[in-house]
């Protein structure tokens, strides 16, 4: 499938957001789903949807290697070769308070979530290593949300981890739920905190992918420990998993 780039933004250094004409897209994406994008190499690159606006879909990425560098070099008017929407996204907001917890490039799918549920009242907790990596804060603002922010180096918001913000929020919202996306160590900590607090949580994972459609068994993450332990595929069983699937009932 080929989608045309209709807008190119540079939200921060080393970060690019491309907005694509979505008319070629078969289905409307759900937040947490991803596009598998050809970037000139052997494999495609999985990138979450960052937004849907006026018949356009967004992907927002950090330049970390050859594929994202190639993508960052594309111009408006060019086509991207993509597959998607792929994978399983975040569920609709459960009853009660809900926090979105995002780290770094895990933030874009959560903004898309907030966009999809315009009436939900959401707490938004965002963290990143530095000010530059704390993307989409303004977008949340325009949606009427005021994220709590922190950075590893204290260059923006509080100094510390987003999971510190979450711990505070959980103690204030004992019946809350959590949608989280970010690096694996952050998600492990979210799993631990929400298990301890007896709050449901859904976690959006990353893993190196081959096919993106469930055929190659490359993108696995381990399922919950125990007798029936298995691997789940991030591309088709995820990328979003209910916490129990990966961590069972005991804290990690």
């Amino acid at each position, binding site marked *: 499938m080929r989608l045309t780039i209709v807008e190119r933004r540079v939200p921060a250094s080393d970060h690019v957001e491309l907005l694509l004409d979505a008319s070629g897209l078969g289905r409307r994406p759900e937040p947490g789903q991803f596009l598998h994008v050809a970037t000139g190499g*052997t*494999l495609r690159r999985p990138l979450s949807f960052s937004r849907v606006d006026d018949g356009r879909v967004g992907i927002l990425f950090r330049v970390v290697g050859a594929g994202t560098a190639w993508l960052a070099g594309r111009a408006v008017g060019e086509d991207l070769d993509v*597959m998607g929407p792929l994978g399983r996204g975040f569920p609709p907001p459960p009853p009660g308070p809900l926090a979105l917890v995002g780290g770094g490039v895990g933030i874009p799918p959560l903004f898309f979530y907030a966009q999809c549920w315009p009436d939900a009242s959401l707490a938004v907790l965002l963290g990143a290593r530095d000010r530059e990596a704390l993307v989409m804060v303004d977008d949340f603002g325009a949606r009427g949300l005021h994220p709590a922010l922190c950075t590893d180096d204290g260059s923006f918001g509080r100094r510390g981890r987003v999971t510190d913000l979450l711990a505070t929020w959980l103690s204030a919202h004992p019946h809350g739920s959590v949608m989280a996306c970010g690096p694996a160590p952050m998600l492990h900590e979210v799993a631990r905190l929400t298990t301890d607090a007896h709050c449901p949580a859904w976690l959006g994972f990353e893993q*190196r992918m*081959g096919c993106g459609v*469930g055929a190659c*068994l*490359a993108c696995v993450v381990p399922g919950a420990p125990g007798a029936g332990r298995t*691997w789940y595929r991030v591309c088709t069983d995820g990328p979003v998993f209910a916490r129990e699937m990966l961590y069972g009932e005991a804290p990690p």
Partner: protein
Amino acid sequence: MIRDVDLTAHIGRIVLQNPVLAASGTFGFGPEYRAHVDMRRLGGIAVKGVAVDSWSGNPPPRVWETPSGLLNSIGLQNPGVRAFIRDDLPFLRELGTVLVVNVIGHTVDEYRRVSECLARESGIAALEVNISCPNIKEGGMQFGHDPDRAFEVVRAVVETAGRPVWVKLSPNTDRVLEVGQAAQSAGAAALTAINTLLGMAIDLDRRRPALGGGSGGLSGPAIRPVGVRVVYEVSRRIPLPVVGMGGIETARDALEYFMAGASAVMVGTATFGRPDAMTRVIDDLPEILRQYGFGSVAEAVGAAHPPAKGEADEH
């Protein structure tokens, strides 16, 4: 599109509507690519390696991109032959494409038992004995590097299969001809080549091998010259049909394998980048064959061999 070019391929008594099959391990157990590929158009499908019991495979990361290539260390994760028969075979049978089941095991007996379980099932055209997977510690490649052990495994499968047995060769040995000959003596109906090259990448950040399994198997265009060489050698010296693979992305690449001696080809890694890679090869083949002066796939097979095919004029 040119219509009067004959794409039929023959692998022994098996007739394929065209010479392009999905390579084992890159096309799942059948349904995964359903939404992305018109599977009825394929010449055939080789499903992922199936063992007698389920295997859990290797820890992630399981893939790593390299220049024009891909390292993988899936470790032959599979649900076991009974689950395969129950969950996947009905769908595959429905499809009506030529189905090849890739067989794996740790021991000769395990290979035999997979073959026995499958013997009762209809809708399977051939078994492909995988004695060349670099991603497991025991079984797999060790059989593919030793002609005597290869003979044993292939014999055990041939005795029980009740259908043609193909044997998949490892390029990681200097004895590929001897192993191929052993497979022939043991009753193989065809050879498939090549499986992946044993390789490794280092994750500089983590200061350790990038793949969870340590080393892995290298596939993709990077290895095409190795695949073409093995197919050329094997098809000249061993009187069995050869199914060629390794780095095929285009109809031109497929033609290179036909000329080297392959009667059909498989496409693996290219499907990850372009799910329509196989159907594009099929679509483009008539024109490419015509352009290089061939009226059929069969005419191109072995066209690059020296005139007196099979003569030992190189040694």
